C-alpha cells in the first residue's frame, strides 16, 4: 500500500517562488470606508474575525482573574461582588459574542459562497447589517460591563435578575437581544444561499460537510434565537416596568423562565459545536487524503442533532422540582441526541484507516478535537442520567463538561479551521513549527485546566463560588496552573498569525492539495470569488483523483 517508493518532494517546496495574485479581495479597495461599507462576504468575515478575536481575549482576561482568585480558598484577590461580575462577563462575552458567531460568522461567512461556487451570499447587505447589529449589541453589553457590571450569571435566572440584582441587567439584556438578531440574520442568509446559490452540478450530496453543518446550525439560529430574544425582553419588562412574568412575588413562575431560556440555550450549544464538527470533517478528510468515511451519515447526523437539540432542554432543570415524568422524557431524548454525535466521531476515526495522514497543524487540532469532544460528549451522558445529574448539576462537573465541549471542541475546531484556511484568507502561510508547538501547548494546558474540575465537581464543589472549602485547593491550583499554560497557548497563534500576514511565505492556491471549490480559486480569492462560475462534475472529496489547480484570474 503506502510503500515509500514515491519521491517525497513536497509540493510546496517544489514550486517556483510564488507571488500573490495581482487583484484579490484584500487589495480591491483601500481605506476604512472600503471596509466598513463592504458587502463582500470575505471582507465581512474579516471584520467578524477582528471583533470576535477582541471579545475572545477580553473574555479570556476575565477568566484569568477568576482562576487567579481561585488559587486560594479565601478568594482574596477580588471581592465576592467583583468575582460574580467577572464570571458573568466571562460567560456572556464568550457565549454570545465569541462562541456563537466564531465559526459561522468568520469561517462560514468566508467559505460558504466559495464552497458553493457563488459570488457572494444571497443577501450581501444583510450580511453587513448582521455585523453592525453584532457591534451594536456588543456595545450595549460592554456598556453594562463597564458601567458597574452585571452579576446574574449568563443565565439571567429569575427572580434574581428581575427583582434582586442591582446591576445592569437591562443594558446587558438589550445587548444580547440585539446580538441575537445578528445571529438570526446570519443563519437566514446561509440557508437561502445554500438553497439557491449552488453552482451548476453541485447537488446536495456533493456539498462539503462544512456546508451541511452550517445548514443545521442555521436552522437552530433561526428557530431558537427568537425565543431567547423575547424571553430576555420579558425579563427587561419585568425589571423595568414591574410587569409580572416570572417573579413569584408577582404571581409568575421562575421555572417557566428556565424552560424558555433553555429552549434556546441548549440548542445554542449545538450552534457552537456543529460548525466545529463541520470544520473537523473537512480537516480529517483533507489531511488523510481520503474521502470521508460515511459521508451521508455525517451529513444527516448534523440535521438530526439540530432537530433533537430542541427536545432535550429540561435536562438543565432536573433539580428544580420539574415533574419527574417530564424529566424522564427529557432524559430519554437527551440520550438520543448523543447517538448522532457518536456517529460523527466514529466516522472521523474510520476515515483515518488506510489514509495518508499528515501531521500538519490543522490535523493536530482535529486530533485534539476528537479526543476532547469524546470526553466532553461522554460526560454529557452523566448529565442526561437522571439520578446522577442530581449530584453533579451546578457543580464544577458541569463547568468541566461544557468547557470540554466548547473550549476543547469549538475552539479547537475554530483554531484548526483558521489555520487550514489561513492561506486562503490571507494568501500567506503560517509558520508550521510555531503552529504545531501552540497546538500541543493548547492541548496540554486545556486538559490540565479542566480535567481536575471533573473531580472537583464530583467532590461537590458548586460552581460560581468565590470562596471554597480548603480541601478543594489542590485541584483548583492545578486548574489555575493549566489555565496559565492554556493562555500562553492562545497567545502564540495570535502573535504568529499576525506576523504571517506580512512576513509569511506566499501561499499557493491549494497548499494542502484539498478538494473543494474554495481551493480552485486564488489565495486570496478575487472579490468575485471565481473567474467564471465553476461547474461541478465530480463527487465530493474526490481525493483519489489528482488535485485541481486554480484558474488564473
Amino acid at each position: 500500500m503506502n510503500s515509500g517508493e514515491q519521491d517525497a518532494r513536497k509540493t510546496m517546496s517544489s514550486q517556483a517562488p510564488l507571488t500573490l495574485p495581482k487583484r484579490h479581495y484584500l487589495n480591491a479597495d483601500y481605506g476604512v470606508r472600503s471596509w466598513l461599507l463592504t458587502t463582500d462576504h470575505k471582507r465581512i468575515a474579516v471584520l467578524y474575525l477582528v471583533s470576535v478575536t477582541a471579545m475572545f481575549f477580553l473574555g479570556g482576561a476575565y477568566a484569568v482573574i477568576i482562576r487567579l482568585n481561585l488559587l486560594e480558598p479565601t478568594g482574596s484577590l477580588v471581592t465576592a461582588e467583583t468575582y460574580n461580575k467577572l464570571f458573568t462577563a466571562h460567560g456572556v462575552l464568550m457565549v454570545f459574542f465569541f462562541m456563537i458567531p466564531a465559526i459561522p460568522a468568520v469561517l462560514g461567512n468566508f467559505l460558504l459562497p466559495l464552497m458553493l461556487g457563488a459570488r457572494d451570499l444571497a443577501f450581501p447587505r444583510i450580511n453587513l447589517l448582521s455585523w453592525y447589529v453584532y457591534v451594536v449589541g456588543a456595545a450595549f453589553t460592554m456598556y453594562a460591563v463597564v458601567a458597574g457590571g452585571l452579576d446574574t450569571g449568563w443565565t439571567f435566572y429569575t427572580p434574581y435578575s428581575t427583582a434582586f440584582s442591582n446591576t445592569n441587567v437591562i443594558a446587558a439584556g438589550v445587548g444580547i437581544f440585539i446580538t441575537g438578531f445578528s445571529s438570526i440574520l446570519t443563519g437566514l442568509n446561509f440557508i437561502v444561499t445554500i438553497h439557491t446559490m449552488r453552482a451548476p452540478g453541485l447537488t446536495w450530496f456533493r456539498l462539503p460537510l462544512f456546508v451541511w453543518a452550517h445548514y443545521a446550525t442555521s436552522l437552530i439560529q433561526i428557530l431558537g434565537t427568537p425565543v431567547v430574544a423575547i424571553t430576555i425582553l420579558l425579563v427587561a419588562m419585568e425589571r423595568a416596568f414591574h410587569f409580572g412574568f416570572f417573579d413569584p412575588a408577582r404571581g409568575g413562575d421562575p421555572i417557566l423562565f428556565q424552560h424558555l431560556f433553555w429552549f434556546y440555550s441548549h440548542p445554542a450549544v449545538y450552534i457552537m459545536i456543529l460548525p466545529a464538527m463541520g470544520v473537523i470533517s473537512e480537516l480529517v478528510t483533507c489531511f488523510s487524503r481520503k474521502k470521508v468515511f460515511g459521508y451521508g451519515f455525517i451529513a444527516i447526523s448534523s440535521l438530526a442533532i439540530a432537530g433533537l437539540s430542541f427536545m432535550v432542554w429540561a435536562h438543565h432543570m432536573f433539580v428544580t422540582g420539574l415533574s419527574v415524568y417530564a424529566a424522564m422524557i427529557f432524559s430519554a431524548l437527551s440520550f438520543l441526541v448523543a447517538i448522532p454525535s457518536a456517529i460523527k466521531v466514529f466516522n472521523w476515526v474510520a476515515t483515518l484507516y488506510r489514509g495518508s495522514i499528515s501531521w500538519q497543524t490543522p490535523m493536530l487540532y482535529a486530533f485534539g478535537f476528537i479526543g476532547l469532544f469524546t470526553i466532553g460528549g461522554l460526560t454529557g451522558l452523566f448529565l442526561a442520567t437522571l439520578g446522577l445529574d442530581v449530584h453533579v448539576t451546578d457543580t464544577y462537573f458541569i463547568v468541566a463538561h461544557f468547557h470540554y465541549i466548547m473550549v476543547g471542541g469549538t475552539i479547537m475546531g475554530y483554531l484548526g479551521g483558521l489555520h487550514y484556511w489561513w492561506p486562503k484568507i490571507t494568501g500567506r502561510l503560517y509558520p508550521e513549527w510555531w503552529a504545531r508547538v501552540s497546538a500541543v501547548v493548547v492541548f496540554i494546558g486545556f486538559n490540565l485546566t479542566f480535567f481536575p474540575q471533573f473531580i472537583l465537581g464530583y467532590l461537590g464543589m458548586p460552581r460560581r463560588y468565590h470562596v471554597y472549602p480548603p480541601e478543594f485547593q489542590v485541584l483548583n491550583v492545578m486548574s489555575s496552573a493549566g489555565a496559565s499554560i492554556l493562555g500562553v497557548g492562545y497567545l502564540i497563534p495570535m502573535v504568529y498569525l499576525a506576523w504571517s500576514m506580512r512576513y509569511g511565505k506566499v501561499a499557493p492556491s491549494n497548499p494542502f492539495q484539498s478538494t473543494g471549490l474554495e481551493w480552485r480559486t486564488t489565495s486570496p480569492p478575487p472579490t468575485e470569488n471565481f473567474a467564471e462560475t465553476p461547474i461541478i462534475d465530480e463527487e465530493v472529496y474526490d481525493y483519489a483523483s489528482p488535485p485541481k489547480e486554480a484558474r488564473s484570474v
Partner: protein
Amino acid sequence: MPTGFPLFPEQASTLASEVDGLYLYLVAVTFVFSVGIAAVLVYFAIRYRRRSESYRPEEIHGSLLLEVVWSVIPLGLCVVMFVWGAQVFFHMNRPPDDAMTVTVVGKRWMWKVQHPTGQREINELHVPVGKPVKIMLTSEDVIHSFFIPAFRMKKDAIPGRYNVVWFEPTKAGTYHLFCAEYCGTEHSKMIGRVVVLEPDAYQMWLAGGPVPVSPAAAGERLFTERNCATCHRADSGARGPVLGGIFGKRIALQNGETVMADEAYIRESILSPAARIVAGYQPIMPPYQGQLTEEQLLQLIAYIQSLSPPPAGTAPASPTPSPGAAQ
C-alpha cells in the same frame, strides 16, 4: 469534613452508594470509549502517516454495517443509563412514609431549618443515623439549591413553591451543606454543615437547649391568634370547612373538580382562598398574601397535618379561616 486532597466524596447516605454505582458505570463507559477512540486514533495516525506526497489512498465510501453497529452499541449502553438513572431518580423523589419532616427555608444568604420537634437551626442541620429525613424546601427570595454532596442530594429551593427531597444518613460525621444555585453576592458563603449523630447522641442534642415549640404547636398558636377557629370549627353552622383529617386526602371543589389537600393546596388556600373553594362553602375568607412568613405558613401546614379526623358525621373539607381574622 475531609481535609487534604480527596478524590472521591464521602458516602454518608443510603442514596450515596446508589448514585456512586451509577457514576462508576458511566466512568467505566467513558474510560473505555475515550481511551479506545484515542488509542485507535493514535494507532492510525502513526500506522498510516503520510510517507509520500504522491500516494493517493484507495477510496472507502463507508459501511452500513459499521454505522449500525456503532449506533446500536452506544444506544444500548444509553438505555441502561436511562433506566438505571430513572430508577435512582424516582427513589430520590419518593420519600419513605416514615420519614421525619424537616422544613428548610432558604434566604439570602442562610439556611433556616426547623425540626418536627421544634428545634431551629441556621446553616446547621442535626440528624440521626439510620432515620429517613424528608426536607420540605422553599425560599423567601430567589432560587437557592440545597446540596449535601456526601448524601448525593440536591434540590432547588424555589420561592412560592414547596420542593421535597429526602435522605437517610448512614454514617455519623460532619458534612458540607452548600447552596448550589447562584443567588447573589454571598452565594459562596451560603454554606453550612450537616451533623449526623448516633441516635442517642441525637436524643441528647434534642434534649439540650431551650424547650422548643414544635412547628405543629406553633401552627396551633397561630391558628388561635388569627382566629381561624371562628369559622373552621366542627359545628354545623361553621362558615369554613373542618380541617381535621383532610391532609393528604382528595377534596371535592365547588367547580366539580377534586384536589389533593397537600402542602401546596393548603398554602394556596391560606394565601389566596378564593382560588379553589371547597364544595359547599362561600368564598368569604380574606387572602393572607403578604401577612405570613414562609416559616409561619409551614407551621400552619404542620398543624393542619397533625389534626386528627373529626368524629364521623362531620363532612371533612378544606381550610378557610375566618373573615374576622384580617389584621
